């Protein structure tokens, strides 16, 4: 029960209100929580007509309208896979607008939220899960000692929208976890994010750990965050640095093409 100013409750019972979000308040948000679950499960157009209306509403961040259109389409028997394909196209437009400086963080958050709701609607109607073809795998995380995830989530979002499979290790990631994940995923690229000043030390430790593990020659390292610049890049031994999500995408594109895997 919530204390309602101006409204009297007849009985003097405790007005304990914390429990409602107690769990939320004591549990850190999972990695990717800022943007919501933005992974797209589908890659190819599946029969049925493309809904321009849905794509426009979604990419225009008209949340209610986009979800309503999706619900109507499904009610009319539209192919849920086609619907998700349309969502993917809308997400690309959102990414392009973010890159162009037309959209900012609120639009990314909202588009993640629209996608989540439409995905929920399609779930009961999907008989199989599709894995999209990806350009490359990228291991990404906020470095040890740093628990900031805002910037990381934006970069992960933009990399995924641009066709990369991102293994998001979350926050406060120790060097050995990066090494382990790179080995497991056989990923050619690793991205490290850090907001705090101390992040540069952890980034250097992680690059050193890659060297010790014999992985350094096989992996390109990008770093980014509030105080990252060329001086820090040199100090850490990373290959490149950036201070926005699009620089991360450009780097990933360049490195993937250099490896000879354009578009997977």
């Amino acid at each position, binding site marked *: 029960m919530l204390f309602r100013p101006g409204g009297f409750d007849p009985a003097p019972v405790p*007005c*304990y209100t914390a429990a409602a979000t107690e769990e939320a308040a004591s549990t*850190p948000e999972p990695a990717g*929580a*800022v943007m919501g679950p933005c992974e797209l499960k589908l890659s190819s157009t599946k029969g049925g007509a493309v809904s321009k209306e849905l794509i426009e509403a979604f990419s225009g961040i008209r949340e209610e309208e986009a979800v309503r259109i999706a619900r109507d389409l499904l009610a009319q028997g539209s192919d849920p896979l086609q619907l998700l394909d349309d969502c993917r196209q809308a997400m690309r437009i959102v990414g392009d607008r973010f890159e162009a400086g037309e959209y900012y*963080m*609120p639009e990314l958050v*909202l588009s993640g939220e629209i996608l989540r709701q439409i995905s929920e609607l399609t779930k009961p109607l999907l008989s199989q899960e599709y894995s999209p073809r990806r350009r490359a795998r990228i291991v990404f995380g906020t470095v040890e000692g740093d628990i900031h995830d805002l910037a990381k989530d934006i970069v992960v979002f933009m990399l995924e929208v641009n066709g990369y499979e991102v293994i998001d290790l979350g926050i406060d990631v120790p060097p050995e976890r990066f090494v382990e994940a790179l080995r497991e995923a056989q990923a050619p690229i690793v991205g490290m994010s850090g907001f705090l000043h101390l992040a540069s030390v952890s980034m250097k430790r992680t690059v050193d750990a890659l060297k010790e593990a014999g992985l350094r020659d096989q992996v390109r390292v990008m770093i980014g965050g509030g105080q990252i610049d060329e*001086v820090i890049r040199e100090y850490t031994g990373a290959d490149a640095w950036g201070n926005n999500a699009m620089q991360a995408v450009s780097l990933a594109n360049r490195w993937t093409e250099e490896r000879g895997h354009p578009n997977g």
Partner: protein
Amino acid sequence: MAEEARAQFAARMKRFTDTVSLQQPDRVPVIPWNFHFFPAKQSGMSSADAMVDHGRFYAALKDQVLKYEFDMAPACSVYPGPPWEILGLKNWKWPGHGLADDRIFQFVEREIMTAEEYDSFLADPDGFTARVVFPRTTSLLEPLGMLPPLHWYLSFPYLLGPFLGMPAFASMLDGLVKVGQEWNRHAAASGACYAELEVLGYPKSYGSVAFTGFDTVSLWLRGNRGTMLDMYRQPDKLLAATEICSAMQTQLAIIQCQISGNPRVSLFVYRGAEGFMSDAQFERFFWPTLRAQVHAILEAGCVPMLFLEGDFTPRLKYIAELPRGQVPLHFDRVDRAQARQVLAGRNCFWGNIPVSIMEHGTQQQVEEDVRRLIELFAADCGLIVDSAGCITDDARAENVEAMVEAVHKYGVR
């Protein structure tokens, strides 16, 4: 000695006020905005010790001020650990409490107020803070969630008995007494340090801290994601909360100035930075209340000093609207050429020496950067030299020395 110190104090204050009011000072001032754990590191203390051993930490802070002879004693952002521990803060991690002893405390951002609770907050911010926010952010104050509306018992306070008689309430009170004792222990060490520095001729950089309205809602209530969703889903409520929080923070800023006797307010500005929102969103959700705060603080006879974290280049056009010669602006990252163009003849430029150079660069790089800053800003805008953000914990001592020396070398009129 005392007379000389008094003269030094007056000279330092004049240097600062001349710079802020766009008069030419005798020398460019060098003032770190605040200190985190830099003094602790320099004296070989761990971060964990610095949050507990207040006497030793503040002695280290004093040593740093005297060593570099800054033009003001930086305020301190190392918080006392014991009150945090007794309160059981849920949205912070600190050394020994979720983090290693050599780490610094970190804020763990969460949604504290749900999207549906705006009306409750707006109708009764104080009641909501006590009954909802505090129980969600601290373990100790969880029993406050059971506190009935006090107006139920305005005639018969003894009817609060069922609440007051709860064992949980009694143990909460015990804890609060300890929080108060720990607060006093820290305040005594901190107060003695700055009083001593003042006698030695060093004014404190600021005596009051406040946040912007939008940041208050975003950081302490809804979380970044929450405010971003609210911009689209319930913009009017977000605006109403931003306005009320802005007014409350302004009131707090002015009261703190009155209590401390120091008119300088550190107004922290975070989520108006580049990347967080568009210009249109900044104009609607951030700027009007920030501008109002600046004006209200000035009207109260205090000095609003803006600590702009992140890249504020896109917002320079708004910052240009602030009253001339009264609002020092501390920059983290900004396009210096654009800043110079916008700020010339308006307000003084503070900070912006890259942390990367302070931590990993050479003394020559620091000297060169200070020289560039002086060339760009000292004549037309006014300049106060400092690192971007603050002198970070891992800044190299020789680079701090180089920063101060460069000011004496290039910044004397």
